[in-house]
């Protein structure tokens, strides 16, 4: 489904952050990427999404065989990629619900489908907001405008639920969430996840993985995946930290 091969990327001053990432994600799989601060986890999702602050130095990223790196940012999203960044951007003046509808209709136009009708969209958003236990405040405000950290993360998952992507790359979705919110958001992700979809979770903590069971756990350090394993690896990292990997 998502295939990342020898991906290298740098920032404007030439500093290389990603130094050859390899990752194969198949439909139905949940992958967790863990790693110390500054290892390149956030950069990975932004590079795959096409953030203009990063330059791809080499390698490839394909989604269902299509070269994502050759696509515009919106085309990547409409092809089925969803990324949630660590700090979702606030956009005052752009209504949250109108934005969601526009995003969904952009995807439908890309796929050659007609615009969604008012009633159908209302039903869809009501259903997803109920799933994530979101109240009406989310409807009237600007995108992420004045939201707490946890509210922003919940709003990200709402977008994911509406856009129904093939692959979701969620960067520290658990940060800023209290215990109840974590349970609700994780429940939402599990609900959206299906056999034809995949999720990549970037996280520092095991606690998210108590709710969303990963098939694979990877350790990213110095811009490379240095170790991969099963769910037990996350427990081992929680216990021992990261240094033992390099010592090994």
């Amino acid at each position, binding site marked *: 489904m998502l295939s990342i091969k020898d991906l290298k990327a740098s920032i404007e001053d030439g500093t290389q952050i990603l130094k050859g990432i390899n990752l194969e994600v198949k439909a139905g799989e949940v992958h967790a990427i863990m790693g110390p601060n500054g290892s390149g986890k956030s950069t990975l999702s932004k590079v795959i999404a096409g953030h203009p602050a990063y330059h791809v130095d080499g390698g490839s990223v394909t989604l269902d065989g299509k070269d994502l790196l050759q696509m*515009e*940012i*919106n085309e990547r999203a409409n092809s089925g990629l969803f990324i949630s960044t660590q700090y979702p*951007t606030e956009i005052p003046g*752009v209504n949250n619900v109108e934005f969601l509808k*526009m*995003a969904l209709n952009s995807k439908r136009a890309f796929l050659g489908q007609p615009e969604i009708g008012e009633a159908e969209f209302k039903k869809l958003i009501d259903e997803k907001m109920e799933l994530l236990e979101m109240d009406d405040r989310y409807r009237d405000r600007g995108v992420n405008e004045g939201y707490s950290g946890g509210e922003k993360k919940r709003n990200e998952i709402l977008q994911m639920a509406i856009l129904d992507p093939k692959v979701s790359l969620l960067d520290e979705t658990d940060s800023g969430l209290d215990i109840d919110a974590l349970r609700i958001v994780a429940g939402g992700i599990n609900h959206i996840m299906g056999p034809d979809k995949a999720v990549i979770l970037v996280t520092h903590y095991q606690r998210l993985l108590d709710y969303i069971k990963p098939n694979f756990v990877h350790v990213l350090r110095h811009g490379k995946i240095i170790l991969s394993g099963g769910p037990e690896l996350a427990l081992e990292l929680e216990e021992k930290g990261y240094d033992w990997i390099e010592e090994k």
Partner: protein
Amino acid sequence: MDAISRIKQIGMPRRNNELWTFFPVAKIPMPEFPETCNDTADYSDEEDFAALLPIAFNAQTMKQDIADGANEMAMLKCNNDFGHTVLNIGKNATASLEILDNKVAHEICAERFDIHVQENATVHIFFANPADGVPLRFRHFRIVQEAGSKVYFSEIERGTGIKRTSLDAFLKGNGARLEIRSLNVLDGDDSVHHRITIRHEAPETESVQFARNLLNGKSNASYDGSVVAGANCSKVFSSQLVNTILLSEGSSVSVKPVLKIYHDDVECTHGNTCGELDAEQLFYLTSRGIPVEKARELLTQAFAKELFMPMPDSPAKERLEQVVASL
């Protein structure tokens, strides 16, 4: 001293005159005044050429009184190149006044509005649909506010030509409040200039100046805003904020805030920001599948919409928001 004599005394606008610092003064044609000035009032204190121009050209004066406690909505339109409107808004009255452009103006168009707002009256003065193709338009306001009055002055400027809005406000009564909101959406060689002076002449008076510019092509905007807080005026509040998004390399903006404060117990602020569309916001929208051109449109519209959001619900706000939605 009549208006013609006063213009002759102060001379044509020049860039070294503080009121005209940013204006392309060379574009102002040398006026050929009538032999006599019908309005014989004394204009010897008037400093602004644009305020004198309609009077010097014997503009037809439209006078209107809005009675105490009345609730009026009106459209004001000048049918000649020069216009003069005198309004007296009665105590506790509410008025909503939309100024329409003269769409058949010739080389130059100049209007003057003298507005006296009595105690506790509330007035919305706004213009949102400027005419295209008027080469040069001056619009001058002289607003006097009594105690407890509120004036919401709102405008949207766009379209071709050179436009200048000048405003002299006198907050004479305790608790008077003036809010000015200006949105300039310019492209090509459009050029829009503001020269605002607000005089706080009583305690607890408040003024808000909020301007936003969306500048494309080789367009140019300027905002020259002065606030004077008088010696006996405690608890004055004034704020001035100008935000500009430059959508092209060739566009430009000039901002000049001036604060003259003669009392210690006041709160006066000013700020100015200038930049491009926020790259992170653009990325966020496009990362959700929205095409980049549509995303730019959304962001510019949001920037414009925010300007009028804090206004109280009113026909003026509705009209301004309608125009913003169509930008």
